[in-house]
C-alpha cells in the first residue's frame, strides 16, 4: 500500500501536467455554426481558415500550466479570413456563462500570410487578437472584457471602426518594425485605452479615433524612448489641460517621453457613418 502511494506520488506531476491537445489545419477549412476549441488549433503556413458569418468559436476554459491564463487558442501562420456581418458577427468567446478576462488565451496571427477580420467579437481572452509579422486588416470588430483587446508588433495593419471596451488595455503594442493606420475606432471604458509599451516610432498612425473615458486614455510604457504622436483624435474633452491629465507621459513621470496629441478633435466624428477602406491602406 505504501509502495502504491509512493508510486502515485512519483507519477502525479506527469498526470497533472498533461499535454494540451493540438489540432492542425494544413489545407483550406471553412467554419460555420458552433465551433469548440479544446486546446490549440494551429493553422499551419499551408493552411487557410475561413470563418463565416454568425459562427461562434467557443474556447474551452482549461489551464493546464496553472498560470491563470486559459490555454485554448487559435494560432495562425497561414491565412485567416473572418467574414462576420453587422447582424451576424463571428464571436470568439469562452465556454463560461460569466465572461471574464483570460478564460482563453488568444487568436494569435504570427508570421502568417494574411489576416482579415470583419465584424468579429473577441471577449474573455487574455488577448482577443494578436498580430505579428503579418499584414492584417481588422474592421468593425468588438474587443471586450479581455486583458489586451488588440495587440501587435512588427505588422502591417489597418484597424478601422472597431470598439475596444472593458479591457485592461484597449490596444497594447510594441511597434518595432510596423507600419499602418488605426482610425475611427472607439476606445472607451478600458483601464488603459492605448498602451505603447516600448519601441514605438510613430510609423503606425492613430487618427480620428475616439479615445475617451478610460482610466488613462494613453499610457506610455516605461521603456518607450521616443516622443509619440496621437494627432487628430477625440479624447472626450475640449480643453487641452483636461486631456493632458488622461495621458500618462512626461507630465506624470519626467523619465517618460511626451505624447503630442495636438491638434485634437473637439467632436466625436464616430457619430457619422464610417466607411473603412476595403483591404486596408
Amino acid at each position, binding site marked *: 500500500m505504501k509502495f502504491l502511494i509512493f508510486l502515485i506520488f512519483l507519477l502525479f506531476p506527469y498526470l497533472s501536467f498533461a499535454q494540451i491537445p493540438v489540432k492542425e489545419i494544413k489545407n483550406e477549412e471553412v467554419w460555420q455554426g458552433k465551433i469548440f476549441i479544446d486546446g490549440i488549433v*494551429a493553422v*499551419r*503556413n499551408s493552411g487557410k481558415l475561413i470563418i463565416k458569418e454568425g459562427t461562434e468559436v467557443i474556447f474551452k476554459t482549461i489551464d493546464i500550466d496553472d498560470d491563470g491564463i486559459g490555454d485554448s487558442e487559435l494560432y495562425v501562420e497561414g491565412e485567416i479570413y473572418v467574414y462576420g456581418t453587422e447582424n451576424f458577427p463571428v464571436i470568439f468567446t469562452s465556454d463560461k456563462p460569466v465572461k471574464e478576462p483570460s478564460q482563453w488565451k488568444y487568436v494569435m496571427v504570427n508570421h502568417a500570410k494574411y489576416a482579415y477580420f470583419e465584424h468579429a467579437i473577441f471577449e474573455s481572452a487574455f488577448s482577443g487578437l494578436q498580430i505579428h*509579422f503579418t499584414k492584417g486588416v481588422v474592421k468593425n470588430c468588438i474587443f471586450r472584457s479581455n486583458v489586451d483587446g488588440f495587440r501587435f*508588433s*512588427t505588422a*502591417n495593419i489597418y484597424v478601422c471602426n472597431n470598439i475596444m471596451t472593458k479591457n485592461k488595455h484597449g490596444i497594447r503594442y510594441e511597434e*518595432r*518594425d510596423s507600419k499602418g493606420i488605426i482610425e475611427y475606432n472607439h476606445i472607451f471604458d478600458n483601464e488603459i485605452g492605448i498602451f505603447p509599451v516600448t519601441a514605438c516610432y510613430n510609423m503606425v498612425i492613430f487618427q480620428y479615433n475616439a479615445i475617451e473615458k478610460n482610466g488613462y486614455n494613453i499610457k506610455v510604457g516605461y521603456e518607450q524612448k521616443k516622443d509619440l504622436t496621437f494627432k487628430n483624435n477625440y479624447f472626450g474633452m475640449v480643453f487641452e489641460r483636461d486631456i493632458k491629465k488622461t495621458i500618462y507621459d512626461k507630465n506624470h513621470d519626467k523619465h517618460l517621453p511626451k505624447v503630442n496629441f495636438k491638434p485634437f478633435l473637439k467632436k466625436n466624428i464616430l457619430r457619422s457613418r464610417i466607411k473603412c477602406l476595403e483591404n486596408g491602406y
Partner: protein
Amino acid sequence: MRYLKLILLFFWLIQEVYCYEIKGRVMLGDRPVSGANVKVYEENYKDIIKETQTDKEGYYLLELDEGIYNLVSEFEEKGKIYKGFSGKNPFFVNESYYVGIKLLPLYRYKVQKNKTKSAIIVGTVLFNGKPLEGATAFLYLSMKDIKGMPYLYSQPTDKNGKFILKNIIPGEYFVVVRKKNNGSLFGPLEEGDYMGFFQYNPFNFEMNKTYKIVIPTFKKIQDEMPLHLKGQYKIKGIAVDEGGRPVSGVYAFAYKNKELGHERPVSISKKTGNDGVFELYLPSSGKYYIGVREFYGGTPVQGERYGLYEESFDHHIIVDKDIENIKIVVKKILQ
C-alpha cells in the same frame, strides 16, 4: 541501497576515464614563448583548475575533464608583464582541442573618483599598440553570456580608440571588446575580426569611480572548431527559399523557450554558404525550437529572411541524437 551505490560507482568510473587533451602554443608576436604560465580557470574565472608551463618551443599540454573552461597565459620578461586569453573563452571541452594563446602587454588601469552614483569606464582599445577605431566594448554579467547579448555596450571607438560607458550599476562585470570587419555588432567572429578581454576580468566596478582602462586586441586567425559553447548533439540541415534553392547568408538558431526571442538562443550556427547548409550544436537532449534568420540580435525586421522548422506546429524538434536532413524554408518577412 546496494544498487544505488553500484550505480553511483559506475558513473564515477566513467567520469574518470573521460578526460581530454588540450594543447596549444603561446606566442608573443611571431615568437613562441618558453616558460609561460598557462592557467585553466572554471567558467567564471573564480577558481584555477589546473596550471602548467610552456616547453622550450612554447607548447603546453593539459588533461581536462569534460566541462567549461577559460585559458589564460601569463609571462614576465625583462620586467614587463604579458597576459593572453584564448579567443575561445569560455569553451566547452568534450573532445581534444588545440588552443593557441597570444600574449599581449599587460596594461594597468587607473581609478578616479566621480560624483555620479554609478561607475564609469573610459577605455582605450589597441591593436599592435595603436588605437583601434570602430571597436565596441561589451559588458557581461557572466562568461556564459559572452557569445550572446551583453548587459551593456558602448558606441564604436573613435579614431583614438576611445569608448566610454556611463551609468554602470556597481558590480562585477566581464569587459570584452570586438570589432567585426563586416560592421555588425553581434554574431560569431570571423577570421580577421578583432577581439580583446579586459585583462582584469572579472572586475568589480564601484560606485562613484571612473576607471581608465586599456584593452589590447588580437585578430582571430582561424575558426575550425564549431561555433558552440556546449555541443553534445548536432543538427545538420539546409536553408532553402520557396523554390527549393539553397539560401546563403542566414544562420540557424535554437531556443529552449517556445516564445522565441525572450532569451538568448541556446545555440546559433555559422552563416550558410552557397550550399545553404548549417550545423547547430546543442548542449543536451531535449526539446528545442529552431529556425533560421538573417540578422543577429533584436526582433526580426521587415524584409529579413526568416524561416521556422515546420515539421511540428510550434517549430519544436526533439533531440536525443544527431539529426540530419532538416530543411527550413526561408522567406522575407512581410514581403
